[in-house]
C-alpha cells in the first residue's frame, strides 16, 4: 500500500501511479485538454453542480434506495444492503454519467454527441440524455451486438439516436470504441465523445468516476443513517468499472471498509474464455490508457467472453488497476454459471431481477462473508435491472414459454432448472 491517497489521483498528467495517462493521437490531445479544462471549471461552478444534482433527483430518481435484503442475506450469509441503482431512470447507474457529460457537452457549446455501446445500455442512456437536452446523437455498436441486442437498437432509435453498426475487427464493443474514436478525431470541433465507462484517456477515468460517485457517497450516508456505522465491505461488478469506481469512491478513504470488484469469469477462469482483465491480464495500453488488458504475446488485444455484454470488455479502467496494484481493492473472477445462480437467487428471495452484470457482484457475497465472518455487513451495488436479460436467462435456465430452442454455438453445460428456494 502506498502513502498516496486515492482521492488525490489522478495526478496532473492523468496518471494513477503507473496506470492511466493519454495514449492518443496528437490530434485529440488539445481537445482532451479542452475537455479537462471545461470539466474542472464546471465542477467548481456551484450552478453546474446544482443543475446536475437537480437533474439526478428530479429526472433520474436519485438518491437510489439502500435496501436491506433480509431473505437474500439469510440465503448467502452476512447482512447484504443493496444499492438500488436498478431503480434509476433507464434502469442502471449509467444515467448519472450520461447526464453529467451531456450537461458538459451543452456547456462546451457542442451540439453532437457520439458514444459506443456493447449491449446497448450505455447507448440507451446516452440517447436518453441527448433527447432530454436536444442534442444530436450517434451510437456506434458492433454489428454482432446489434443483432443480439435488437431491442436496445429499437430503444435508441425511439429516442432519436442514429445507431451505426460497426463491421470492423471483432464487430463488438472494442471495435465500436475504435470507430467512435475515428469519428471523434474527424469531428471534434462539433462533437463530444460521451464515453460510457471509467476508462479511456485522461480525463475520462476521473470524470466518469466523479459523475458516478454519488453511488458511493449516497451509500455511505445511508449506511451511517441505517446502522450508525460504515459497512465492512463494498462490492461491485467490474467491466470497464464505472459502477464499481462510483461505489468505491465513497469508501476508498475509509481504511476499514474493504473493497471488492468482481470480474466476468466467463466459461470459467481456467478456460481462458473470460473477461477477467485484472485477474488474468497484463499491463498494456488500449483505447488511450495504460491498465491491465487481455492481450497475446505480441500485444494484440484478445477478445473477451462473458454472458454479460456489459462486462465483456478486454480492458479495465486505470484506477481499478491502481487499486488492485496497491492492494486497496481486491478483484476476483465470477463465472457465468455463478452469476446466473445469484441472479435467480435474488429474484426468488427478494422479488428483484438484477442485471447479469450486477449478479456477478451478488455472486461474490458468499466468499466475502466467508472471509469477513457471518456478522459482516456488505453493500452491494445493484448496478442495473435484469429486464434486458430475460431472454438470456430464459435460454440459460431453459424456462418454458420460449419459442426457439437453444441458439447456435452455446455449448455450455446447462445447470438444472432452479427449484423452489
Amino acid at each position: 500500500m502506498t502513502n498516496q491517497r486515492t482521492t488525490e489521483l489522478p495526478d496532473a498528467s492523468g496518471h494513477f501511479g503507473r496506470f492511466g495517462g493519454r495514449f492518443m493521437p496528437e490530434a485529440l490531445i488539445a481537445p482532451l485538454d479542452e475537455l479537462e479544462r471545461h470539466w474542472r471549471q464546471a465542477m467548481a461552478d456551484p450552478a453546474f453542480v446544482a443543475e446536475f444534482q437537480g437533474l439526478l433527483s428530479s429526472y433520474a430518481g436519485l438518491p437510489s434506495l439502500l435496501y436491506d435484503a433480509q431473505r437474500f442475506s439469510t440465503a448467502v450469509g452476512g447482512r447484504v444492503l443493496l444499492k438500488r441503482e436498478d431503480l434509476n431512470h433507464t434502469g442502471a447507474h449509467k444515467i448519472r454519467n450520461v447526464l453529467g457529460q451531456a450537461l458538459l457537452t451543452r456547456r462546451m457549446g457542442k451540439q453532437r454527441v457520439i458514444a459506443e455501446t456493447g449491449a446497448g445500455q450505455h447507448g440507451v442512456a446516452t440517447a436518453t440524455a441527448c433527447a432530454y437536452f436536444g442534442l444530436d446523437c450517434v451510437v456506434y455498436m458492433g454489428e454482432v451486438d446489434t443483432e443480439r441486442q435488437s431491442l436496445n437498437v429499437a430503444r435508441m432509435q425511439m429516442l432519436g439516436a442514429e445507431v451505426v453498426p460497426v463491421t470492423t475487427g471483432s464487430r463488438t464493443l472494442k471495435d465500436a470504441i475504435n470507430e467512435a474514436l475515428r469519428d471523434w478525431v474527424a469531428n471534434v470541433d462539433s462533437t463530444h465523445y460521451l464515453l460510457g465507462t471509467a476508462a479511456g484517456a485522461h480525463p475520462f477515468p476521473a470524470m466518469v468516476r466523479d459523475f458516478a460517485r454519488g453511488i458511493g457517497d449516497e451509500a455511505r450516508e445511508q449506511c451511517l443513517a441505517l446502522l450508525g456505522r460504515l459497512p465492512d465491505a463494498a462490492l461491485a461488478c467490474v467491466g470497464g468499472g464505472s459502477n464499481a469506481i462510483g461505489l468505491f469512491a465513497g469508501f476508498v478513504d475509509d481504511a476499514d471498509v474493504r473493497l471488492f470488484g468482481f470480474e466476468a469469469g466467463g466459461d470459467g477462469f481456467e478456460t481462458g474464455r473470460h473477461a477477467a482483465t485484472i485477474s488474468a491480464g497484463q499491463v498494456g495500453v488500449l483505447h488511450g490508457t495504460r491498465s491491465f488488458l487481455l492481450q497475446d504475446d505480441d500485444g494484440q488485444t484478445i477478445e473477451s467472453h462473458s454472458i454479460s455484454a456489459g462486462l465483456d470488455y478486454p480492458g479495465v479502467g486505470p484506477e481499478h488497476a491502481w487499486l488492485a496494484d496497491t492492494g486497496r481493492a481486491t478483484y476476483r473472477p465470477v463465472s457465468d454459471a455463478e452469476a446466473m445462480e445469484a441472479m435467480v437467487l435474488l429474484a426468488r428471495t427478494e422479488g428483484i431481477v438484477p442485471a447479469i452484470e450486477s449478479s456477478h457482484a451478488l455472486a461474490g457475497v458468499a466468499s466475502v462473508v466467508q472471509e469477513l465472518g457471518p456478522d459482516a455487513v456488505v453493500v452491494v451495488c445493484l448496478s442495473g435491472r435484469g429486464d434486458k436479460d430475460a431472454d438470456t436467462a430464459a435460454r440459460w435456465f431453459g424456462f418454458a414459454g420460449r419459442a426457439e430452442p437453444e441458439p447456435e454455438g452455446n455449448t455450455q453445460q446447462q445447470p438444472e432448472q432452479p427449484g423452489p428456494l
Partner: protein
Amino acid sequence: MSGVGPRLAEIASSGRAALVGYLPAGFPSVDESVSLVSAMVDAGVDVVEIGLPYSDPVMDGATIQDAVEVALAGGTRTRHVLAVVEAVAGLAPTLVMTYWNPVERYGVERFASDLSSAGGAGLITPDLIPDEAPEWLAASRRHDLDRVFLVAPSSTRERLVTATDACRGFVYATAVMGVTGARGAVGAEASGLVARAKEVTDLPVGVGLGVSTGRQAAEVAGYADAVIVGSALVAAVQRAADPADARHRVAALAAELARGVRGEL
C-alpha cells in the same frame, strides 16, 4: 547520426521534397510485403515506412484496417515485422509505423535493440505522445534511432513545441483532422500546419493523410519537406489480381508520386 535525417537532407539539397511510402508488413503475406517494398523503392520511394499490424488501429481508415486484418489473420507477428525491416533496410532508410502497445509488450528496450540490429531507422508512433514516452526517448537515444511524433491541425503552439522537441528524423504533420485514407483533396489546413511547425523546429516536416495521386504529391511538395503516402499504395495492392500485378500497380503509383515530388507532372 544515422536514421533518415541524412537522406532527407541530401534530398532537400537537390531541391525537392522526399517521398515516403508506407506498406504494412505481412500484407498480403510476409514475403510479398518485402517484394512490394522493393518495388516501390525501385520506382522512386525515398524513405520506407513498415506498418506493424495491430488489432485496434484507431488512427487508420478502412483501407489500412482491412490490410492489417489480412496480415494478422495470416499470422504476422512482431518478429516478422522486424524481419521485413531487415530485408528492406538496405534499399532505403526504413522506419516502423506502430501503435504503442505492441512495442510495450515486446519490451521497449528490446524492441529498440532489435530494430537497430535489423537496420531500422526508428519509429513513427501515432498513438504515443512525447509526454507518455520517457522510456522510448531513452531507448531511442541509446540505440541511435529516429523518433517521429505527430503534429495535427488541432495542436497548439505549446503542443507543437513539445512534439517537435522530442522528434528526431522528421516531424509527421497530419494533413487533416481524421484517419488515414485517400481523399479528393489534401486538407487546406496542411500548409498552415507545416508553417506553424517550422516556426518552432528546424527538422524536416512531412505531410501525410490523404495524399494519393502524383498531382497531390506535387502540391504538398510545394510546402513540405516530405510527402507521405500509405492508403493509396495499400489500395493498389488490394485492387491487384495477383502478386505480379500488385508489384506492377505499386511501382506505377510510386513512379507517379515520385514524378509529383520532382515537379515532373
